[in-house]
């Protein structure tokens, strides 16, 4: 890494006067850089990221409707209310469910597709593009498209089941099925991204190592199990990390599909925050949800990086 302070020690060959000038001018220069280049980012970040987070922690101890200043201190009561609230606990459960199932489905799917696309058959590039396409769309748009697909009257599901002579399915109105319908959309939207991660991971596996395995007598499946898969370890951990982080932030997709219903069966933490915190301007409660989400995210980030990604 280039460190510009190298110039601040003048070499003996330079005339003394010039050395003194360059030393002070470099120091002056350094200070200018620090004073001009850092503050904008610092200001923006502190004002709109750090302070709000701190304020969330503070507000969570109050009951407040957002006007004036918070005056009604209620300590940890917001948190008590939260954890006794059926909708919130459902939201927590849903987030967990989404994390587990999307990992269990998306990761194998992504690996499977990545290995298939590793063959050099014509059309591979086209397939890759198509699979990645849902990822570049907005969550909200994907949600709305699938709201149509799932629609019990006009949707594709309705058409298919009518074709087979079944009654119209109202999947999104069924409080047991809706969350799984949403899981389907999640997989549809993100599998391409995870697949790309694994494609990159596969490319980093040295071809001659696979040839050595072939000479050692490994079949296709054995090559995958004993050589490729272990070498995909760091990609796997990365993929799971993104699945977890993404699942916790789920909001845009859920709103057009179910809005959190029916009967709060598809709430996630962020939709809960929005519905009960923002829409009803219960700043204290909403901030409490934010704090819970923050704690979960940071614990995961630290814990995950420390435990799993230490050697990556």
């Amino acid at each position, binding site marked *: 890494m280039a460190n510009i302070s190298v110039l601040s020690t003048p070499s003996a060959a330079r005339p003394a006067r010039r050395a003194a000038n360059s030393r002070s001018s470099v120091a002056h220069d350094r200070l200018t850089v620090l004073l001009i280049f850092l503050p904008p980012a610092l200001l923006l970040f502190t004002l709109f990221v750090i302070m709000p987070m701190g304020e969330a922690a503070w507000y969570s101890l109050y009951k407040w409707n957002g006007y004036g200043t918070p005056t009604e201190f209620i300590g940890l009561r917001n948190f008590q209310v939260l954890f006794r609230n059926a909708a919130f606990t459902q939201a927590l459960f849903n987030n967990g469910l989404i994390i587990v199932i999307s990992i269990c489905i998306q990761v194998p799917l992504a690996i499977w597709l990545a290995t298939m696309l590793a063959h050099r058959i014509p059309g591979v590039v086209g397939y890759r593009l*198509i699979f990645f396409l849902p990822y570049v769309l907005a969550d909200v748009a994907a949600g709305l498209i699938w709201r149509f697909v799932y629609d019990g009257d006009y949707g594709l599901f309705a058409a298919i089941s009518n074709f087979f002579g079944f009654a119209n399915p109202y999947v999104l109105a069924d409080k047991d099925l809706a969350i799984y319908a949403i899981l389907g959309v999640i997989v549809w939207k993100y599998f391409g991204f995870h697949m790309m991660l694994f494609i990159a991971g596969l490319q980093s596996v040295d071809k001659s190592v696979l040839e050595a395995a072939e000479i050692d007598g490994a079949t296709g499946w054995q090559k995958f199990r004993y050589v490729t898969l272990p070498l995909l370890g760091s990609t796997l951990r990365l993929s799971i990390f993104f699945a977890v982080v993404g699942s916790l932030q789920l909001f845009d997709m859920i709103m057009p599909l179910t809005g959190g219903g029916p009967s709060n069966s598809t709430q996630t933490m962020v939709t809960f925050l929005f519905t009960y915190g923002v829409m009803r301007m219960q700043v204290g409660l909403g901030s409490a949800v934010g704090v819970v989400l923050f704690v979960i995210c940071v614990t995961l980030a630290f814990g995950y990086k420390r435990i799993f990604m230490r050697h990556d």
Partner: protein
Amino acid sequence: MTDMSSSVRMRTSTRIYLYVSLSLIAAIVLVPLLTTALGGFKTLGDLRTNPFGLPTEWQWTNYTDILFGERYWLQIGNSLIIAALTVLLTLIVSSMAAFAFAHVRFFGSSFLLNYFLLGLMFPAATAILPLFIRIRDLGLLNTYWGVVLPQVAFGLGMSILLFRNYFRNLPEELFQAAFVDGCGYMRFFWHISLPLSRPIVATVSIISFVGSWNSYILPLIMLNSESKYPWPLGIMVYRGEYGTDWQLVLAFITLTILPTIIVFFVAQRHIIAGLTAGAVKS
């Protein structure tokens, strides 16, 4: 050694298996999108009875009404302005900060860097209420900046990281040569670091732009007059208004995701590289 041999050696049965599986998944990806696009060309009745096929009668008016209306272009325009401002501000602010981190050794620099990296750990949603209050108190509610500033702020962690790593990887000799020539930090930044930064500028721009273009919750909370709505809010409003007139809603959705799809196919390699690079490097 070229790999031409493996394609020769592949059995036909393997090929069939590959193409069938891949096409199946591709179908699952494309069918919702195509039926949405086609649905916009149908009447409601046609949509109900014939969702998968081509329209029995091509209804152009669904699409043309939207295209000749104001609201669609207004929303696309809003999205464009917000995204452009976000990208611009992000590039300027993060490249400068990253430059300082990369080249100036100062007391507390690693602490400060970790400070910014905190932003990578939690999403904007966690602090959305206090953020709303702050923006309101700053008088920026219902303005573009009310959306742009938080977006830039939350993206700083990633963009500073990307820029800093890139700057550090530029060859040392460049700097040493420039300094021998009497170049100070600022001129460096302007004349050397930035011009050499095209690839990372592209990556950061793509990440910021796509993030802003597709964002929903932030504008939802910060904006309340429809004339300022970006398209993600727009489609929800449209859906709210036209409820079960799916043929209209589908047409609207198609038109709003069309720019994304076109740009994606045109600049695929850059977009894919940009979006996955950000992921891997964090």
